[in-house]
């Protein structure tokens, strides 16, 4: 690990409240100052062992708007891993060339391992089903921006709560901010016991609902929608039965609070009806835009770069 406060960013569960607040402060700064020379003369490697165009473009745009340069690869089949090189060797090699490594990998725990062998900080851009902390930071920043605070909010999570790593990470990150959770999902895709226990251990109030009811919508400050994927169901008939139960439509928003905002990690399929897109509650497109600021925040923080006095 290099000096001057540089550090890897691998998992949101490891991040302290202070670290999360620092990243949110930086995100707000970059929304005001998206273009700068803070990364002038620096090289960031984006190593995508698994393709993810959306995430890669967001990180590379962040580096470019900070005045830095990008090296890397977007697909493992073009990289040395396809020749059987270990992750350890690839990371040590790249760490000779770059000041920071942003990596996405199909294996779980890959970013943690890379951070242990790398001589430069590592930012996790997703490791299999495990962690995707930059998504969580953009979710938190979106909540903060739309609600003016993170404390004491009622957050309703809908859809695939079993496999959805974004909802699991958001749940863990919110533990610092006294949330109330409403979990809306079918039995097959219910929030795993591990995370319910996490709520109980951290004194977080939650309710589980099978029905996406007007009552649940009426008490929500944030509705976090997720994709319900056909392949998660052993029985295709079961999927047909539940897929529409967790679709959000404009008509369902009648009794909503004025401050309600709807988030979705994107891409969506049909869990949010297109008639919602024009509603003031729809926030998922701006949410994606916040990803740029959140990633600028993560990159500069990982490198230990101080922001200019405002």
């Amino acid at each position, binding site marked *: 690990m290099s000096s001057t406060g540089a550090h890897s960013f691998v998992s949101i569960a490891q991040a302290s409240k202070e670290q999360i607040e620092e990243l949110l402060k930086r995100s707000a700064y970059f929304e005001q100052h998206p273009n700068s020379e803070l990364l002038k003369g620096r090289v960031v490697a984006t190593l995508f062992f698994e393709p993810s165009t959306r995430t890669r473009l967001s990180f590379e745009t962040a580096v470019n708007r900070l005045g830095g340069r990008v090296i890397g690869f977007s697909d493992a089949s073009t990289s040395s891993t396809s020749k059987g090189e270990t992750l350890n060797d690839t990371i040590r090699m790249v760490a000779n060339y770059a000041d920071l490594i942003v990596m996405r990998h199909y294996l779980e*725990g890959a970013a943690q391992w890379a951070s242990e062998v790398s001589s430069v900080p590592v930012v996790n851009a997703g490791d299999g089903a495990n962690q995707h902390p930059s998504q969580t930071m953009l979710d938190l920043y979106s909540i903060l921006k739309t609600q003016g605070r993170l404390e004491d909010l009622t957050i309703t999570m809908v859809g695939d709560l079993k496999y959805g790593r974004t909802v699991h990470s958001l749940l863990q990150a919110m533990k610092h901010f006294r949330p109330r959770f409403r979990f809306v999902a079918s039995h097959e895709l219910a929030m795993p016991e591990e995370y319910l226990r996490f709520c109980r251990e951290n004194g977080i109030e939650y309710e589980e609902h099978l029905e996406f009811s007007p009552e649940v919508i009426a008490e929500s400050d944030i509705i976090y929608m997720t994709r319900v994927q056909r392949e998660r169901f052993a029985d295709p008939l079961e999927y047909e039965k539940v897929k529409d139960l967790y679709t959000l439509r404009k008509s369902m928003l009648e009794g909503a609070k004025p401050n309600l905002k709807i988030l979705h990690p994107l891409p969506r399929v049909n869990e949010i009806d297109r008639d919602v897109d024009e509603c003031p509650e729809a926030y998922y497109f701006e949410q994606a835009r916040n990803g740029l600021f959140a990633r600028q925040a993560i990159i500069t923080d990982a490198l230990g770069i101080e922001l200019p006095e405002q």
Partner: protein
Amino acid sequence: MNTDKKELAVAALRDGTVIDHIPSAALFNAVRFLDLEKLPKAVTIGYNLASKKLGRKGIIKVADTFFDDAVLNRIAIVAPNAVVNTIRDFEVVDKKRVQLPDSLIDIVRCNNPKCITNNEPMRTRFDVVERGDDTHDVKLRCHYCNHTVDGLDAHFK
């Protein structure tokens, strides 16, 4: 031979190690942890013996062998309350509970096939997230992929 079963189970040991207070369900895991199969010494394994505290318990006696604490403490993964007696000249000269460390380096293999540790030459690391007792399992979490595993389901590297 007219040695009855009871006598065999409590047969005296001149020098060696007696590990007691192992839940029956954990006994054979404990045997594997100690790598006893390769040991050219007299080993007595008692299974399903009556116990006031555990209902049924297991016991392991190994003649003329004294284990490192690091090896003995592996037993705590499946039997957190196991007791290790050191015997010299028929006397118990030391008696101590096994100690479960906070983390286990390169002892347990991760059950998640998509974990980096199963796809890269590297050491594993598990953190103890629940310490367990006679009725509740120890819970371990992989430092890399965050999957959790019950002590009794943990596989050795």
